């Protein structure tokens, strides 16, 4: 299993996920840097992502939408706050309205991605911090949607 550990800090509203991949740091960085690769894993199962804008520089913006099983679209944005290829990426992630503009009142998740070389490949650590509990509440709604759209095969993958 690529996820080696995860921990949740309820007080700091932080989720940390540590994963290991059998690939060098440069290749793992590519799955973030190349929007065509990024869109193959960013959306939950049944909700593939399409990145229309992907500015991988400090202050750069990304805009994407995820397409649901009924053709409905859920839009999101990133703002890159720090970047040190191929080791570190910091970005804010939030929901957007139909025109792709950030929702002012919406959830913002602060993400920090760190890649470290290992003997067997790459260790990726993701730290996600929520501004408040309401932000987590919004994510739960998404988590449930995902649970409903999962096919039996995907549930088997999770359990296996």
């Amino acid at each position: 299993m690529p996820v080696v550990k995860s921990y949740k800090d309820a007080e700091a509203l932080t989720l940390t996920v540590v994963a290991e991949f059998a690939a060098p740091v440069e290749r793992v960085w590519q799955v973030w840097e190349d929007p065509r690769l990024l869109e193959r894993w960013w959306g939950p199962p049944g909700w593939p992502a399409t990145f229309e804008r992907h500015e991988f520089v400090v202050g750069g913006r990304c805009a994407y939408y995820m397409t649901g099983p009924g053709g409905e679209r859920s839009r999101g944005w990133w703002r890159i706050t720090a970047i040190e290829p191929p080791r570190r990426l910091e970005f804010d992630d939030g929901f957007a309205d139909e025109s792709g503009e950030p929702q002012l009142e919406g959830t913002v998740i602060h993400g920090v991605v760190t890649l470290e070389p290992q003997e067997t490949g790459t260790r990726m650590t993701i730290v996600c911090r929520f501004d408040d509990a309401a932000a987590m509440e919004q994510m739960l709604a998404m988590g449930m949607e995902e649970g409903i759209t999962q096919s039996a095969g995907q549930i088997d993958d999770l359990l296996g």
Partner: protein
Amino acid sequence: MVVRELSDADADRIFHALADATRRDIIARVAREGLSVSALAQHYPMSFAAVQKHVAVLHRAGLVHKERRGREQVVQARPATLRRAIELLEAYERIWRQRVDGIDRLLAEE
């Protein structure tokens, strides 16, 4: 699946209540059976009053309810609220586990 909608203040209280190790331990104990505050206090190296304060924080967050039995207050877990709080944290973790699996599959393809 949705037990009920929580307000922001509700959710903040739940996370604050669960952030403390003693309070998490109290919940684990009262989830098995209702216990009086004095029975709970025997398990911790702190005063009865301090344990009572922890119980009050859990009560305000809706994680436990208190019932008077004779001269004692019996504390019991409220599983529905607790489940909701755990769901909040786990939902986002699940999303990330799926993303990590997706990256892993992608890297294996090339």
